[in-house]
């Protein structure tokens, strides 16, 4: 479905003009996402996961490398390719609070992508209510602004918005980090159903290894801008190869609800 070949990306790290020193954030990233699978990316905070996801939806430009979506090169898209990319791939961001427009009512945030599809307002309204239902919210939330909702409620609005147009590939960047475990379980059930109903492929970025272990088909582990390990979920958890993966798994078990060592 999507193939990434030797992607590099750097940011200039100095804020002083003319003395730009650039730091590599992504280095030689190559992987593929197969249709219908759930690929999870885990890794150090700051290792470049969000940057990678942003490159995939053209919110950041890579320095080198190629991104191929269903056979079509979308690395540096022209307008037509960009609209192809956007109908196929949607991304939900790490911080819902900042990805929703603070000056738009929730209703308008949800209706906006639907209106672009030239639906009449009646249908838009119906669909908005349906979307809200999907993510476990209700009408009372529609006529509020993002700052009047809790962190978790905003996150659910962002999810509803991203699935409004039935993308084929959904990129979810730490979408459940702000939610309680019950809402998290509910959203994952929802994603599972949507995946089935809408034939969706999922790229799921998360720090929650216990969660990843449950939902991933394959797992990619990143550290300092590189993929240090990518394999079937079972292999990664039961037979980790890279030292960093081993460290992650040992930290996970130290924090586990079944472990008393830290107390």
């Amino acid at each position, binding site marked *: 479905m999507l193939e990434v070949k030797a992607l590099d990306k750097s940011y200039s790290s100095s*804020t002083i003009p003319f003395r730009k020193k650039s730091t590599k954030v992504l280095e030689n990233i190559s992987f593929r996402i197969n249709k219908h699978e759930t690929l999870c990316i885990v890794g150090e905070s700051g290792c470049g996961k969000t940057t990678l996801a942003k490159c995939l939806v053209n919110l950041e430009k890579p320095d080198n490398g190629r991104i191929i979506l269903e056979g079509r090169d979308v690395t540096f898209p022209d307008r037509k390719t960009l609209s192809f990319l956007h109908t196929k791939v949607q991304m939900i961001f790490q*911080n819902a609070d900042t990805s929703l427009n603070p000056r738009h009512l929730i209703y308008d945030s949800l209706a906006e992508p639907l209106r672009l599809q030239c639906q009449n307002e009646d249908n838009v309204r119906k669909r908005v209510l349906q979307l809200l239902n999907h993510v*476990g919210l*209700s009408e009372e939330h529609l006529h509020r602004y993002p700052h009047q909702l809790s962190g978790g409620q905003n996150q659910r609005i962002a999810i509803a918005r991203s699935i409004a147009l039935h993308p084929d590939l959904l990129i979810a960047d730490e979408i459940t980090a*702000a939610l*309680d475990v019950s*809402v998290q379980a509910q959203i*994952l059930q929802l994603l599972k159903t949507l995946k089935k109903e809408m034939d969706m492929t999922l790229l799921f970025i998360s720090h929650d290894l*216990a969660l990843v272990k449950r939902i991933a088909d394959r797992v990619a582990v990143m550290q300092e801008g590189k993929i240090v390990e990518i394999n079937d979920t079972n292999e990664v958890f039961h037979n980790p190869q890279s030292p960093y993966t081993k460290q992650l798994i040992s930290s996970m078990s130290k924090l586990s609800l079944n472990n008393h060592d830290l107390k």
Partner: protein
Amino acid sequence: MLSIRDLRVEFESPHGLIMPVDSVDMDILDKETFTIIGESGCGKSLLANSLLGLLPRDAKVSGKVHIDGEEILSLKKKEWRRIRGNKIGLVFQNPSASLNPVFNMHGHLYETLKYSNKPSSRDKMVSLLKKTGIKNPLRRLSQYPHQLSGGMKQRFAIALGIATDPDILIADEPTNGLDVTVKLKIVQMLSKLHSERSILLITHDLNVAYNLSDKIAVMYAGELVEIAPVNSFFEKPIHPYSSQLLVSHPEKEMLPIPGFTPQLTQRPQGCRFHPRCALASRKCKHEHPGLEKIEGERYVRCFACA
């Protein structure tokens, strides 16, 4: 240390008065880590922010909050300055939205330290960043929020919270967005702080709650529904909402609680959890249960369990 009585936070809304935080009573002892868990949207952040006088202007707060015997809710705006930073420090939820984009890290730390009249030397700042596990602290000081990853901002928010060395640290989702190795470090760091001061921790991360807390309080629809010492809570949660919450954890069955969070404008009569509760009886639909002491240090708001 900190005592909260009948704390309410209310808003006028187009659909009438709403009360996201409803008569909360709780006590945090000296050097105790008291953790609130509960549904997203149940009122945890509003509760925490009300202790710092940081609510939106249209919020109405009532009740009594004493810190070391001093009532703080009735304080004037100017007097909050003495409390904030010195008595209570805050690690706010979602640093991306709360950090000022035009200030670099140095600027944020400088403002925070100056606000509570603390020395703001570079060495002090560097040691704070180090304490929270930020690598290259000197270089980082000159960076702006947009140049930091989510996890880095989170660690920086913790550095800001402990910068002024408060007696009580309120940490609202302090480990959100951190990878497990860093999370483990932060948990270890906070548990060290824990021997120095009281912490009010708010978290969705049950692993963090389990490993850091002395006491757990569970909040549902604006109310506390259970308070318990941490070990007995995780061994045997008593309130039906608490036990179902544990079941939703990925290390357990990961089954969501059926039904939906009640709307703020249409909270169910009787027990607020009754539409979703497997144990609900007739009484639960009509009468509102109180928070009752049942055994040892355990308090539960449920007819079936009291």
